[in-house]
């Protein structure tokens, strides 16, 4: 892959992140309520408010406030979480690590299960097996996450089959088997939810590619079925799947609040909700920006993966 292509995609990512940071900052600025008021409470005097505003730089123009904030962020200083009165960074890293563990296990398992399922369903299109795969994956995506999670808890952590702990969290650094057993249920729930995405995308693209001229031509050159399907068809069919995978990783990091809640798992999703409910603006900015960074980074990786899969992209930059 040409370095120019990588560099281009990387710069593109930086520009996107810059825009996002402005938007995030602007939105938190226009949120109703004065930050100083939040800190000092309802009964603060005007003088005290003004003094605090001055101290925090809240009376400065927008671009200066933004400049200070982003400067801090770039130096790893996200400020103080108002509601907890502690620096944001360690908190954020801890939660991000937890979310990343959950996301990594889920996405790897989803990929391993859903892509072969999709290929299989495409090759046996409209057969009974195809229908079963499709219907069951749809059930997985349509049932609300908390319902799936609760059902799993009842089935696998209930009084009958007490295989896994129903909730909580143990760090991997303490006890690996125990940590693993704690994430089994949330990962299972996430996998059930996400399989339909990946499976369907792979299936429809695979059906499309299997009808293409180059697959027919490969077949008429006498190549074996395995070569036609896995070498010629699958590689071309993976492009849209990569896109969906990248989006799903972003989703897994920032938007699985319900599942974190059901399994009492300390992920970044719950931290965002906490920041919102406790009107902790610096924490909100930091968490949302982190999730945005993950989205951008994953999409950058997806772009690189495109280049690897498809030479046309690689050589067109």
């Amino acid at each position, binding site marked *: 892959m040409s370095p120019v292509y990588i560099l281009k995609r990387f710069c593109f990512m930086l520009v996107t992140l810059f825009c996002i940071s402005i938007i995030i900052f602007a939105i938190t600025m226009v949120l109703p309520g004065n930050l100083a008021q939040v800190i000092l409470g309802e009964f603060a005097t005007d003088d005290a408010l003004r003094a605090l505003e001055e101290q925090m730089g809240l009376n400065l123009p927008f671009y200066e406030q933004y400049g200070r904030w982003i400067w801090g962020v770039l130096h790893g200083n996200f400020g103080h979480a108002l509601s907890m009165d502690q620096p944001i960074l360690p908190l954020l890293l801890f939660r991000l690590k937890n979310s990343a563990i959950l996301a990594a296990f889920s996405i790897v398992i989803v990929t391993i299960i859903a892509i072969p399922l999709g290929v299989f369903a495409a090759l046996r299109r409209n057969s009974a097996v195809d229908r079963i795969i499709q219907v069951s994956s749809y059930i997985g995506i349509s049932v609300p996450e908390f319902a799936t999670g609760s059902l799993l808890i009842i089935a696998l952590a209930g009084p009958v089959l007490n295989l896994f702990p129903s909730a909580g969290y143990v760090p991997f650094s303490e006890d690996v088997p125990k940590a693993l057993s704690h994430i089994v249920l949330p990962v299972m729930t996430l996998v059930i939810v996400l399989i339909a995405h990946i499976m369907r995308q792979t299936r429809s693209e695979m059906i499309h590619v299997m009808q*293409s*001229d*180059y*697959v*027919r*031509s*490969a*077949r*008429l*050159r*006498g*190549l*074996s*079925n395995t*070569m036609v399907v896995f*070498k*010629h068809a699958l*590689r*071309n069919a993976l492009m849209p799947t990569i896109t969906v995978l990248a989006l799903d990783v972003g989703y897994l990091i920032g938007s699985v609040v319900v599942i974190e809640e059901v399994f009492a798992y300390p992920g970044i999703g719950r931290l965002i909700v906490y920041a919102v409910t406790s009107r902790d603006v610096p924490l909100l900015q930091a968490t949302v920006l982190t999730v945005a960074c993950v989205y951008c980074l994953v999409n950058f990786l997806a772009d690189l993966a495109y280049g690897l*899969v*498809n*030479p*046309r992209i690689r*050589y067109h930059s």
Partner: protein
Amino acid sequence: MAGPILSLDDVSISFKTINGKVRAVRHVSLEVRRGECYALIGESGSGKSTLAFASMGYLPANGSIDSGRILFNGEDITGYNHAQLEKLRGKHVGMVFQNPHTAANPCYTIGEQLTEGIIYHEGISRAEAEERALAMLEAINIPDPKRILERYPHQISGGQKQRITIAQALLSHPDLIIMDEPTTALDVTTEIQFLRLLEDIRSRMDVAILYITHDMGIVARLADRVGVIYAGSLVEEGSRETMFRHPAHPYTQGLMHSIPSIEMDRKHKGYSMPGLLPNLISLPPGCAFAPRCSVAGECCSSLPEVRLIPSEDGVEHRVFCHHAGAPLSFATGTVEECVCHDEEGVACSEPLLEVRNLKKYYEHSTFTDRLLRRAPRCVYALDDVSFSIMPGETLGVVGESGCGKSTLGKTILRLTEATGGSIFYKGEDITHKHSQSLCKSIQIVFQSPDSSLNPRHSLYTILSRPLLLHGIASGRAELEKRCFRLLDMVSLPRTYLYRKPHQLSGGEKQRVAIARAFAVHPSFVVCDEVTSALDVSVQASIINLLQDLQREFQTSYLFISHDLSAVREISQRIAVMYLGRLVEVGSTDQVFQPPYHPYTKALLSSISLPCIPQPHQSILLEGQIPSPANPPSGCRFRTRCYRTQCEACASVQPDMVFRDGHGLACHLDRAVLEADTPVFPESFLS
């Protein structure tokens, strides 16, 4: 006599569909002999491709062979299992497809795709396979074969790709190569190179070819024997000479007469076969061609037995017809030139449309370009194009794909803004003017009616939309009446009004597209490759229709096409384009006779005519057409020009010099060009 490689014995193939069983091939028996080139011709939907795929044991899941045997080297392949079929396809039969652009996997290099088959089937090492691929590319004269092997499909041109597909097919030293319309997607100049390559391969290698096509010119050039297939049945078979000189089946004769050809008198209307291909689900008993046949009698309701007709060259001539050899008339009316008069009956002298120094550059600059203030990169799609069209006149525009002829149409319609120059319509500058009335006067008919007609709309909706839009008619009753008249105008039955496009044949759909354009009584219509997507038997009828409409409404056409025969038939004047510039403009006779622009001559000489032998020598253009983003300095054609060049050729762009209304843009002396030999013999162009 050599034994047959492929022999079809009473083969019938059908497809199960929701509407019923489609009997795509019925009781076909034919054989392809060792080392021969057998051409299978027929209209689209006649079953010729189905036969080809079946010969490789490849049918879609809903297809089945109902009867008969397909023998390859004497072995019946209909009962072959997967492994046997793989071996057959990988070792003994090669295939070349219609569209070289989609037949190669975009993810792998040419080398990888060339070698994987022989590595798999012959168990040789990669290095050995690569060596063989290289040798094969060298054998078929592909320049710089080493680099080609490392390239990806999107990095090489269409003509090159098609040659590589041939190399691929030949690599396993097969006994037979099946070619399914391999040149349909190529330009004439590329096509002729491809055909030359085939001739060369046949002279050096012992390989039989089953060539599927609807192009009679190619058949005349290549084939040893010809089979004609109609509605799934073989109707006639014989040697090439017999089939061209003494065709016996009424369908073959009709097909031969409906080809728009250079040798035809332009004053005669083209012959078009009446009727349509029958529905293959509910075929009538007896001869399938009977409903379209002028000599059909009562006996035709029974299936015709094969008849052997004695031939001059001793090659078996088989005909499936009760009336084989019956005299038929293909006489057609004459075409009256459309001369435009004003109210007082004086012939018009003012051009309807005039284009002066029209330029269209597609600029594209990347973000970094703008950042570094670099000049934008340009694609010179149109450069200094000037011409005029009189009322009621047809100007044909010809050139290879990518020469800018479609951009010209689009720019005149102002679908895209001109970069420079001006367009005058009835003396008024309309270059940057957009108005409802101009849209009404200038219309377009596109190449493919499949994509230009909304598949979800009925013909009523399609035809009434422009009427409503331009306030010509309103109210259901009036609109319906108007639509009926439009259908009458393009000779479609009124019962079609509430049908959807997919219920119509290709030719009928194109008629609807023409009716839509004429709904608003335009005075100028751009016809962008309107016949290219249609079968030969239908092309003539579309051209006739356009000519009839022209006479009735005194419409002017800009007829864009790469088919020189069709352009010659319909156009009073022809403009030849190369890389965004006009190189020659003149009346049809002037363009077809010397003096020629060297490029025009190459184009004309690349045509394959349905005559044996070909009456002309072909000029092969060297190299690829340069990119319009980076055109050569001076004369744009100089990099491929086969004439001795002067100094000015490389440095100065030649101006269009007119003599008797015949313009040539070439630095060569007019006298030299005038002394050129005609491409076609005098007797041809009547």
